[in-house]
Structures are given as C-alpha cells and as structure tokens.
C-alpha cells in the first residue's frame, strides 16, 4: 500500500465546523502515524516561575505536550520541526494558564511529507496571555495541516496569533486559527494575523481564521493576506543585481526573521536557516 492510499484518521476538529467542500473541518493524519500512543510530556510550572523549553523534531514522531502554568508563571516554548521531507509527524501542544501566567510559543515548521500540528491554549486565569508566532515553509509534495485554538476564558486575557508562511512546488497547507472569547472573558483582547506567500502556481493554500465570541466586552480582530511576492519588493531587489530566484529567497527568509529572532539558540537558528535555504533551492 502506498503512503498516499493509507487510511487516514481524524486527529482533531475545528470548534465550529463549516461546509465540507472546503475541507477544513477535520485535521486528518495517516493511521500509522498514530498507531502508537504519542510520546507524552507533562510540564508543570509552579507559581511565579519561568521555564524555557525547546522541542526539536528530526524524525517521524507523534508528540503530545501538556503544560499547566501556575499563577504568574511563564512558559517560553519553542517547537521546531526539521525532519526530512519524507516523514510524517503529528504533534499536539495543550497549555492551560492560571491568573497572570504567560505563554510565549514559537514554532517553525519546515518538514514532513505529512505534518499535523495542534495548539490548544486555555487562558483560564484572569490576566493570562499567549503570544504565538509561527513560521512555516512547505515545498515539493508536502502537506501541512495546522489547527491552533486560543480559548480566552479569564478576564483581561490577551492573545496574539501571528503566522507567516510560504508555499512552493505542489505543497498543500491548511491553517486554522481560532480566537474563542468565552462568556465572562470581559476586557480580553485577541489579535490574529496570517500572511501567506505563494511561490508556485501548483500550491494549495487554505486558511480558516475563526473568531468566536460569547462575550461583548472584548476586542477581537483578525486579518489574513494570501498572494504572491510583492512585485515592488522583487523589482527593487532585482534592480540591485539579485537574480529573481535570489530575490524570492531573500524575501521569504526576511518573513521568517521575526520568528527566528525569538529563538535564543544560535546553532538551532543556523540549522533552520540552512534547512530553509535547501527548501527554497529545491522547491
């Protein structure tokens, strides 16, 4: 049986389903990826403490990470996927935050013939916040399937969900991002932004930026833009001697810069840049 024909199973669902023809209701992964229970990591961060964690995936794997943040705790989580392009991965990160706790989540997604990412953030405590920054690049025949949900339950919570990405070759990607203002989350603010750069006529990009609200006293906004590289930027760079391919590479790398700047490990950043260069060169 080929990988393409392998039976798929539902890994996750969006909180508010819509038309089936759009194909975004369910995150599906090949059955074999979930044949064994995902490696489970439990993280508990006591009140007032801070933890940094870097998770780098370089092989076929399924991971589930659950984190509980006590009052005023801070969790700086970086998740990077650098596995070869022929492997399949499925990761889930679930974080619950108490009062005034903060999550800083940085994700770089560069790999996998099939990759599924879930992020489920529960801003349960008043004044808690999540700052999520994601960069992805998919090329070749890759399929990247993401579902990010931030549930704002406490009062005066803050959520930022900022996603930048590029697609080339025949890559397919779905990004679902949900800001969910639960009734009682008065004074909460949520911002979601996705910018997608399309580098090939054969890519498929799907974006589902959901915003759900049961609370009036909130300020929620989302914006998405999808398109080719900015022609003016390209013209400027080529007029300064860069080839069109080099100019495209530079623009995509520049889009990744704000996300890479959040990663302290310079060796890891260098590895990510090298992987991106490779992907950009080989489409």
């Amino acid at each position, binding site marked *: 049986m080929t990988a393409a024909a392998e039976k798929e199973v539902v890994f996750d669902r969006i909180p508010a389903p819509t038309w089936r023809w759009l194909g975004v209701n369910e995150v599906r992964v090949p059955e074999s990826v979930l044949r064994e229970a995902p490696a489970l990591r439990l993280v508990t961060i006591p009140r007032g403490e801070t933890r940094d964690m870097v998770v780098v995936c370089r092989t076929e794997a399924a991971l589930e990470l659950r984190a509980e943040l006590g009052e005023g705790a801070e969790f700086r989580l970086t998740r990077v996927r650098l596995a070869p392009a022929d492997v399949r991965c499925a990761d889930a990160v679930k974080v619950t935050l108490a009062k005034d706790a903060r999550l800083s989540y940085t994700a770089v997604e560069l790999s996998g013939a099939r990759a599924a990412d879930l992020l489920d953030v529960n801003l349960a405590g008043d004044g808690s916040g999540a700052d999520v920054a994601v960069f992805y690049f998919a090329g070749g025949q890759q399929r990247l399937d993401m579902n990010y949900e931030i549930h704002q339950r406490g009062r005066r919570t803050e959520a930022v969900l900022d996603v930048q990405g590029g697609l080339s070759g025949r890559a397919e990607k779905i990004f679902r991002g949900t800001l969910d203002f639960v009734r009682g989350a008065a004074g909460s603010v949520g911002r979601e932004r996705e910018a997608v750069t*399309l580098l090939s006529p054969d890519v498929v990009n799907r974006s589902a930026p959901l915003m759900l*609200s049961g609370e009036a*006293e909130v300020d929620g*906004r989302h914006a998405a833009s999808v398109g080719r590289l900015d022609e003016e930027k390209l013209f400027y760079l080529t007029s300064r001697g860069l080839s069109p391919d080099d100019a495209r590479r530079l623009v995509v790398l520049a889009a990744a810069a704000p996300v890479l700047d959040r990663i302290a490990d310079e060796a890891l950043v260098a590895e990510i840049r090298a992987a991106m260069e490779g992907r950009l060169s080989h489409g």
Partner: protein
Amino acid sequence: MTQQKIIIEDIARALYDVRDESRPRYRSESGLTEDIVRDISRRKNDPAWMTEHRLASLAVYNETPPPAWGPAITSLDMDHIATYVQPDAVMAGRWEDVPEEIRSTFDRLGIPEAEKESLAGVGAQYDSEVVYHSIQTSLTKQGVVYTDMETALREHEDIVRAHFMKLVPPKDHKFAALHGAVWSGGSFVHVPPGVEVKIPLQSYFRLNAPGAGQFEHTLIIVEPGASLHFIEGCSAPKYNVTNLHAGCVELYVKEGARLRYSTIENWSKNMMNLNTKRALVEKGGLIEWVSGSFGSRVSMLYPASILAGEGARCEFTGVTFAGRGQHLDTGATVIHAAPRTSSVINTRSISKDGGVAVYRSGVRVSAGAKGAKCAVKCDSLMLDSESRADTIPVMDIREDDADIGHEAKIGRISDEAIFYLTSRGIREEEARAMIVRGFVEPVAKSLPLEYAVEMNNLINLELEGARQ
C-alpha cells in the same frame, strides 16, 4: 446618580405580524411523501420531466442527511409542515382582481404603493402561489419577460428546462432537494441582450398559513450587455408552530451583463429560513448582492457567486440583526473560476438579547484564475454578553497569481469612541446611536432608498434615560 442606557429595540414587527385567517383553496397534508409530491405536480399541471424532477429530488431528500454544521434545526419536523398551500385566488394582473383579504395584506406592506412610485414590475406570492404579477408595457416592448414560474414553465419551457436547478442541483444539500420536490411559485425574469431595465422589479413573498412551507423558485437570466435590479422581499406573521422557507434563486449573468439582487428578509420568528441563492457570472459580468437578514428563528443563507468568465465580478453587501431567540447564520461564498475575476464581501452583524449572529464564508480561487482579487471584511457588534457573534471564514486558494485579503472585527461599542464624541458635546445616548447607525451605514447606502428607509425603521433605536 444618573444612570443612562441605550435600548436598541428589536425589529418592529407589528406591520408584518398581522395575520389573515388562513382560508386556502387547498392545503396538502402535512408531511412529505411521494403521494404528496405527485399531488402537487398534478395540481400544477407539470410537464412529465418536471414530475420526474420532483420525484428524483424527493429521493435525494430522503437519502441526504441534514447539515452537520450551523444552527440546530432539530425542531424542524417535516411531518408537521404542509408543503403546498394554494390560496383562494387566481393570478391577476390588476390589484382590483386580487381577493380583498389578500390585497389588503399587500396594501399594508406597501407593495402597490411602491409599484406606483418606484418599480417597473411587481410579483406578489401568497403562500404557495403567485397572486399578482405585472410589468410595465415599455419593458415588454423591449422583450423583457417577468412572470411567475408556472407561466414561464408553460410559455418558455425550453429556457426553464435548460436552467432550472442546474446551478443549484437537488444533490447540493438536503433542502435544495426538498425544494426540487415541492417547489411552487416564484418569479422568472429574462432580459434580452443589451436591454437596460432602469427601474427595479420586485417580487414579494408572503407566507400566511401556519405550519406551512414556502418553496418559491426564482430564475433570472440577464443576457449579454443587459442590466437589471431585482428586489426580493419576504415576511410572515408569527405563529406558535414552525414554518419553513426553502426557496431557491438561480441567477445567470451573461457576458458584460449586470444584475443587482437586493433582499430584505423579515420572516417571523417561528420561521426556519433555509434558502439557497446562486449566481453564474460570465465574462465581464457583475453580480451585486445586497442582503438584509432581520427575521426568522433560524436562518442559513449564503448567496454564492460563481465567477466563470474572465473579468467577472461580485460585490456582496450584507447586514444581519439577530435579536432574542434568533440564530442567524449568514454570509456568502465566491468561486473565482476564471482569470482577473474580483470579489468584494462586506458584512455587518449585530447581536443582542441572546441573539446569535454568525458570519460564514467560503472563497475559492481555482487553479488558472490568474489575477484574481478578493477582499473580505466582516464586522460584528455585540450589544450584550447574552448574545453571540461568530465569524467562520475560509479561503481556499489554488492559484499563486492571486491577491486575497480578509479582515474581521468582533467587539462592543468602544468606550474611546463614546468618550471622543461626548467630549465634543454629544450626549452619550446620541453618541451610541450614531455609532450603531454608522456601523450599518455601509450597508444602508447600498440599498435602494425606500429599502434603506425600511431598514432604518427596522433598526429602531430608542434612547432612554432612566433616572434614579
């Protein structure tokens, strides 16, 4: 201490809630069976192909599950819905020939008056049949056809057969299949090439019978270079039993043609409004949707535009007002299927008193639709935390040479805006009213004047100062 509050009233429904005693000439048994479908077909003298179409649709209905998304529609029990209610009237070309009781209903709704003042033609449907239809002689001389669907089926059978439920096939979803089985009434418009219909045509749909369904079919064909503005209005009195509306609108906008389709939907709050609207737009054509959703207990309405020809365009402007007991799930879909097509979706929704307003959209750019552009803007205003406002947009982009933008906001009336306005001497309640009116203004200005006035009446802002 002075406490001030703004009360934004529910839609003023008194005008629409006047009900006539239901005295139909014929009312089908409640429920949906092959015998009932055959009976409707026989009574309407359908050609054989239409009878077959109805029966095939019934089979699709029986095997199709209800939608697995959107509002709960479990309270809809087809065993308690009469799908065909024939009023005690025959279609007339003069209001004087419409039976007094039915005529007075349309008088109250202002339809004959509007006809005199600002319309080039009017169709009026009461329950399952059209009871009045007219069109200005100047338009018929130019070859414009505007008539009820049953007449169109007799007099323009080839055109109807070539287009009927081709854009919205019965297999599209369960309620499209239901429509295919029991449709009755509706309007047919054909505008010949190059003819500009400068004054709007309007069809008004009134469902008076309790526990009944209305399934009118609207088919409009605007030939190359022609233009039309079509207005659709709908209302019903409130009953304690569920009524159902599952109409179907199919619009064909040919090369270089323009069609504006305006709707003010004000069904009563016992209505399930499960309507389907779709337009096929050819090269250089333009479809403009203007949609106001105010009534119904449950609404699922997402006009769809298929931009099939190069340079075809779509503009969708919508406003939804969900009050107590209402779950209005509305939005739009656009398929960019040709190069240099463009679409703009601009919606506003307001929810209050436990009302649920959902904006739902789907935008697809097909491979090869080079130069496609789409801009979506959907804003939601919640007036209290008993209510809900959700936005569920999806973009499916399969062409790199495309420029797609989407933005949305959810929130309440901003304290900063109130502060700004009050600091300039405007009383707080006036400031709030200005903000709410400003919120729907982009939609109001897209409506024909008389409809903008009606919408302003519907969104009746009442300021009240309660002193302690």
